[in-house]
């Protein structure tokens, strides 16, 4: 069976494809930041809980209080990229979801378990004692599993040639583990989470430090060390990821295409800059460089997806209906919503000071 023939016909989109690409990449970047903070924070909390010998260090308690917010934000900020991904690539992601439907459905159950684990870990922090490791460990395990499922489905979506597996397994239990890029891709996200999570902790430390909180320095030290080690590992993994790509795609990033090559290596270079800055304790600039790296890597990832799909499908071929008014309504809602959120956060930041 010709794999290309299996690709479902796509539905029309209301406005030009570029808008959706922008929304997808912006939404994914925000989701990635929240997810990194959540997973990185979770892993760090787990390691701290295992190391401390029963005495919870302040950093662990800090993390425990922050993780539920990170989960809530990750889930919420996961909505736009998943929505816009379906707008541009629905005909592909639904197929990969069906092929691994059992795991696909497990996502929300695992995420829910992780979410409740995070709340138990926070609300019962003191009462749990040593069982804290178990609770946060379970949460982290669930989150790692969610990430693994997403890595599977999003890599499977790019390879229609693998889809014929449906005819021997229509039960939705397929794992895309034969895909050479799967493990480096998955590891890329996990290591990224540790690095960004570490940097986030360092940022919290820097903020506390500025306010004269003596715990600040400790948090910076801890966060930066996570950032550095995870980023070094990330470099090795990045290379593995690059080499595991199909040759013609890999060559695009090695001079074959100016856009592909420059974006990837500029991103990597900025990553190195962030590393150097962080190692010198300059948390703020390191955060800036890391954010820039993240944005470049998100765009590179999009180019990689395009390269994979070139023989089969491009969202640029989607018919456009041209009805823009719902998009404008969304824009109005976004402006109002953002203003409300800004106001709410200001209000919250000021809470307790006026009474």
């Amino acid at each position: 069976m010709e794999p290309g023939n299996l690709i479902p016909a796509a539905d029309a989109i209301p406005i030009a494809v570029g808008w959706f690409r922008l929304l997808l990449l912006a939404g994914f970047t925000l989701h990635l930041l929240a997810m990194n903070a959540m997973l990185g924070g979770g892993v760090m909390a787990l390691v701290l809980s295992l190391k401390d010998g029963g005495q919870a260090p302040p950093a662990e308690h800090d993390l425990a209080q922050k993780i539920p917010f990170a989960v809530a934000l990750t889930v919420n900020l996961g909505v736009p990229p998943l929505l816009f991904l379906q707008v541009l690539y629905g005909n592909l992601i639904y197929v990969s979801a069906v092929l691994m439907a059992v795991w696909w459905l497990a996502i929300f159950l695992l995420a829910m378990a992780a979410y409740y684990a995070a709340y138990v870990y926070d609300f019962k922090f003191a009462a749990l004692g040593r069982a804290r490791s178990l609770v946060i460990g379970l949460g982290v395990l669930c989150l790692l599993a969610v990430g693994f499922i997403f890595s599977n489905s999003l890599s499977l979506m790019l390879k229609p040639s693998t889809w014929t597996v449906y005819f021997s397994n229509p039960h939705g239990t397929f794992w895309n583990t034969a895909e050479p890029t799967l493990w480096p891709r998955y590891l890329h996200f996990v290591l990224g989470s540790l690095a960004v999570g570490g940097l986030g902790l360092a940022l919290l430390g820097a903020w506390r430090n500025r306010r004269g909180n003596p715990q600040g320095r400790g948090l910076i030290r801890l966060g930066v060390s996570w950032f550095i080690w995870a980023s070094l590992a990330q470099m090795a993994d990045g290379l593995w990821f690059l080499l595991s790509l199909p040759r013609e795609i890999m060559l695009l990033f090695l001079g074959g295409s100016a856009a592909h090559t420059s974006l990837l290596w500029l991103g990597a270079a900025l990553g190195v800059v962030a590393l150097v800055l962080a190692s010198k304790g300059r948390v703020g600039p390191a955060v800036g460089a890391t954010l820039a790296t993240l944005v470049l890597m998100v765009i590179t990832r999009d180019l990689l997806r395009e390269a994979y799909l070139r023989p089969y499908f491009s969202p640029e071929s989607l018919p456009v209906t041209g009805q823009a008014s719902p998009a404008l309504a969304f824009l109005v809602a976004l402006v109002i919503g953002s203003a409300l959120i800004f106001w709410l956060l200001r209000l919250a930041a000021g809470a307790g000071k006026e009474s």
Partner: protein
Amino acid sequence: MNYPVWELQAWGGGWLIALIAVVHVYVAHFAVGGGLFLVLTETMGRRAQDPAVLDYTRRHTKFFLLLTMVFGGLTGVGIWLVISVLHPAATSILIHDFVFAWATEWVFFLVEIVSLFVYYYTFDKMAPGKHLLVGWIYAGAAWISLFVVNGVISYMLTPGGWLGSGDFWQGFFNPSLAPSTAFRTFLALVLAGVYGFLTAIRIPEPDFRAKMVRWCAGWLLLPFVLMLAAGWWCLEVLPESVRAMLLGANPEMVAVGRVGIWLAAALFLGGLLMALRLPRAASLPLAALLLVIGLFYMGSFEWAREAGRRPFIIYGHMYSNSLLLSQMPEAKAQGVLKLARWSQNKEVTDQNRQAAGRELFNLLCATCHSVGGPMHDILPLTAKYGGFGLDSELDGMGKLLGYMPPFAGARDERQALADYIVQNLHGKKDEPAVAFKDQELPLEIPPFDQKKDQYVLLSWNDLGMHCVTDGDQQLLILPPANTLQAQLIKRGESPELVNEGVEITYAVEPGHSDPAKRLPFWQYAKAIFGQELPPGVGLAGKGLNGNLDYDEKLGVFEAKFIPVSPYPDAGGFNPYPIFSIEAKDKQTGQVLARTKVVAPVSAEVGCRSCHGGGWRVDNIAGMVPATGEDILATHDRINHTNFKQQAAAGQPIFCASCHADPALGTAGDGKRLNFSTAIHGWHANYLTQRGAEACQACHPDSPSGPTRCLRGLHLEMGQDCTNCHGFLEDHALALLKQEQAAGKPQAAELMRHLQPRTVDSQAKVNPRTPWINQPDCLNCHQEFAAPGGDASGFNRWTKGAEELFRVRGDMAGVKCPACHGSPHALYPAKNPYGRDRDVIQPRQYQGTALPLGANHNCKVCHTKDMDTELHHPNSLRMVRSLSAD
């Protein structure tokens, strides 16, 4: 037909969606009503400066946060994930057409999260006015979320103008948006009260507990009436077809609707009870019970919404199995396997039949039906069928019962799907029918001496076959009621019909004299007809022997409704019992003439082909209780009758008591279709595009069966039922048009999907009344001559009963069947139970099987050769059929 289908087997049938969706919406509605509950409860506490109320509000907020944000939020994602794998094509439409509705909803979801966090974490740290404002922002954002999501959900039920324009706003602001939003809003407030109980009953201090429980009861009770009114409003705005589906056209709605009403009542009563000051031991379980009742009430509402949408997932646009309405013609023309991207077998062959059937099941059925699971399990729904029955069921699907989509596929795909379900899922073997082998039962032809005998006694059965149903415990379609007729001719140069001074008697052959022994009819006759009927006596008072009475109007001797049975007393099956007929001089008692006649009667009535059950007798004939029960249950389900229960209580159903039947002389209730029209009109929708096998599925004429009703000259000439009666669709349409003209609206419904086959359009089908307007023999046999090659008896009907073959006579008054034999057994007929069984009189009087007098055998009655065609034109022509002897 775009996506692969997740093969779920027992887990299928919409069970996963139902489970995730119902628990999600239950919590999601709480998230909406609960927001208002929080802010108003806090307002109450602030105004009264009651720290206990504020403390309660804070604790309820924590519960609310953990339930709505974590469980509610994640199950919402869960719905998204589950619909994308179970209904990817529909999900794709919802996403692409309403992407900015979802995006807008996400914005308010984010506002909800942020405001709820701020509300909870700053409960005692913020100025009261600002804190309340945060609560109001949460409540507002939550309601907007509901409104936006409901725009898309209500669009699926009533897409309104979107269907024509594809316009976002027309789809969003669809006809049911406002009433369903109102309903959901009030339901959300009711649920806020239900959830409120859970925290209120845990308050330790009794007076305060009672106060807060009463406060929650108010939340449950006050919006309740408004919720019911909004529910009524919802029903009012729905299109007629959707409303009909909700009000019972979809049979599962009967139960769901009833359960919903009971649950609503229980919820309200529970609320009233909670408002009383109950002891904690009582209020605790009651609160838990109300939570469960609320869940099921929510479930029944969502179920109804889904059920009203059948057979669509997006009403009027996409069927539940993801086939677009616009794709249906293509799917039927080229086959759905070719249309589907994810099918391996693109056409059905003998080699891939089961594999193709499985793919067809996945594509067309598996979206809604599980295999052995808790929801919409295909196994019990199809357990009664064989390959033929299920194929027929698929043929009729979506035509008369609108909750299923029409079968989308080619003819051979339909059979392959039926075979897969029957043979693979049920593991049944569709055994080919064991062909009945011809028998030669003993028969002695009475003697006749053309030189000496002065009388010729002719006798026949009026219809050539009378069917009898023997599932009387459940229902009576046709009682044993065979009618024999006779004419006596005094021979001479000018023979005369003898109508006076003679007595003509009939007597069944030995071995058939006790029909009550094997037919259950007499056990139920009193329950059915209200009066005792002695065993062996028929509905017109005739037994198995007696007199034929002279009918002045018809000009024949007749014994009506003789209850002869196809089951010989000693066992077995013989649909052709013989009667001896004798004419005597009334005064002297001298026997003037003797003959014999067959009284065809069969219980080979094939209801079981589709209604399940086996044959009752010898695996060849008769109706077992299971078949009758299924017929009644089906009638109950579709027409909301209570027949199965009535029959179980000892009151079997006599179809002709409501549905008029001219053959049995019942007038029916005047409102319903007559029996023949109802039964043919209904079943024709399930048996389209077939030849005589459609007729043979029910009537006893299977070529391999034990009756073979059509056994006369026409069979010999290679014809079948359809040559005279038309194809089943034609036959049904003619009956339906007559009832339509009589002002019965049900007829149009049954006609909607029937395409005539012998003529171009329904308009060209001539209406007819059953048993009265029949195909006229002279349609084909113009001037009594041999017909042309393409002659068809269909669509030109006898104008009245007097033109019927069985009533009509020649100029001398001799009835057509007297010389030609009964309908369906025209001489020279070949009976499977003996060569001469259907041609006794031609054999007796002229030694051949040809019609009496044929080939110049005038001397059967006349004492000399004749040269004028007095009986009818062409009567002196030599007959064609040389195989007759």
